[in-house]
């Protein structure tokens, strides 16, 4: 089953419900990048709360989406990384230093709101 991508205001929310195969990860990547242009979204939230494992392929793909999104003028945030998943990722050296992360969906929305607010502020200056 493809990961559902919901439109929520100016943002896209992809909520991953299960462990993903490499194929599904690529599909998600493609769909997100496609939709960001279609709906003119200014932010993407990827919710990984339900994922028990985030392997190197998944984390690299998500990072690619994040960096690509940034090039298209929007911002992505990954939310809901669980404590043991977070530590495992760090131990395996899956670095996400240049990707935004937040605790949960609520935090992610707040982050994007303030990012947009910051952007308009910068523009006005």
């Amino acid at each position, binding site marked *: 089953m493809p990961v559902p991508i919901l439109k929520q205001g100016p943002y896209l929310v992809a909520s991953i419900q299960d462990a993903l195969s490499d194929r599904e990860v690529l599909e998600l990547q493609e769909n997100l990048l496609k939709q960001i242009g279609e709906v003119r979204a200014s932010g993407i939230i990827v919710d990984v709360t339900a994922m028990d494992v985030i392997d190197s392929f998944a984390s690299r793909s998500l990072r690619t989406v994040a960096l690509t999104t940034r090039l298209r003028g929007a911002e992505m945030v*990954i*939310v809901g*990384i*669980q*404590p*043991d998943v*977070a*530590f495992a*990722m*760090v*131990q395996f050296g899956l*670095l*996400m*230093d240049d990707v935004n*992360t*937040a*605790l*949960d969906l609520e*935090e992610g929305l707040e*982050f994007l709101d303030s990012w947009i607010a910051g952007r308009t502020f910068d523009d006005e200056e």
Partner: protein
Amino acid sequence: MQQDDVTLMQEPNTEDGNSCLPELVSHLRDSRTQLREEWAQRITDAQLLGAMSEEEIFSEVTSVFDKYVDTLETGSVESLQEYAEDLSERIIPRGVETHEVLGIVLLLRDVLARSLFQKYQEDFKLFNRVLDAYEPAANRIAVIVGVSFVHERERVIGQQQATIRELSTPVLQVRERLLALPIIGELDSQRAGQLTEQLLNAVRSNRARVVVIDITGVPAVDKNVANHLVQTVRACRLMGAAVLVTGLSSDIARTLVTLGVDLSMMDTVGDLQGGIEEAERLLGYEVRKAPIATPEAKG
């Protein structure tokens, strides 16, 4: 290893010796009152068990004596072992030391041996046979009691260590969404792992945005601990929480630089106070002094 020792000691136990055991046991039972008094007296004389009163010593002496004779008779050590563990559990918290326990058991062995000597001194051959029966059993009992005591002690120590570890890594909520983790004491890899786990779970349950890790109380930091700290910081970031590390002493800071640990992604602040203030700023708090109501103002 203990088992090997026991069998070695039993080797001189000939059939002749075995046949002497019942007689031996009944002699010890007959002189129970006198023997245990003598034993208690010798314990007091040797100034063992200073932590216990004389009545307590005497009642323990009585039950140990009975168990001892039972064990001699039946050769079954289970009930003695159980009793020894139970006894250890009771006396360890009162500060009874290993040498005292061993001393007491050996004293009992001596008291009983002497009484046997008195009884059989006429017939040296018979005395030898009695001793053949008595010595291995007595030594075995001494070993069992000593080992039980040490085991119990080790168990208590292990339990206390677990408690200390548990206590020594409290994750405290200072303000809403702000956690503080003061680390006190040496960090080994086991403790560091436990600490990270507790911290990450606390970040989730308190929905923390900023974490201040204070390492003022850590005496030394080596490469492993430094790397672990860096990993903890990264993992917190993945969960959306920023981390400030405070309380790096000049020695530790120098060590880290010398070791070449990559600390580029660690935000550090001088002390805990500075760390909390910085965290409050990040969270948008503004702390101001309220005007103090002086007595004049009230009047």
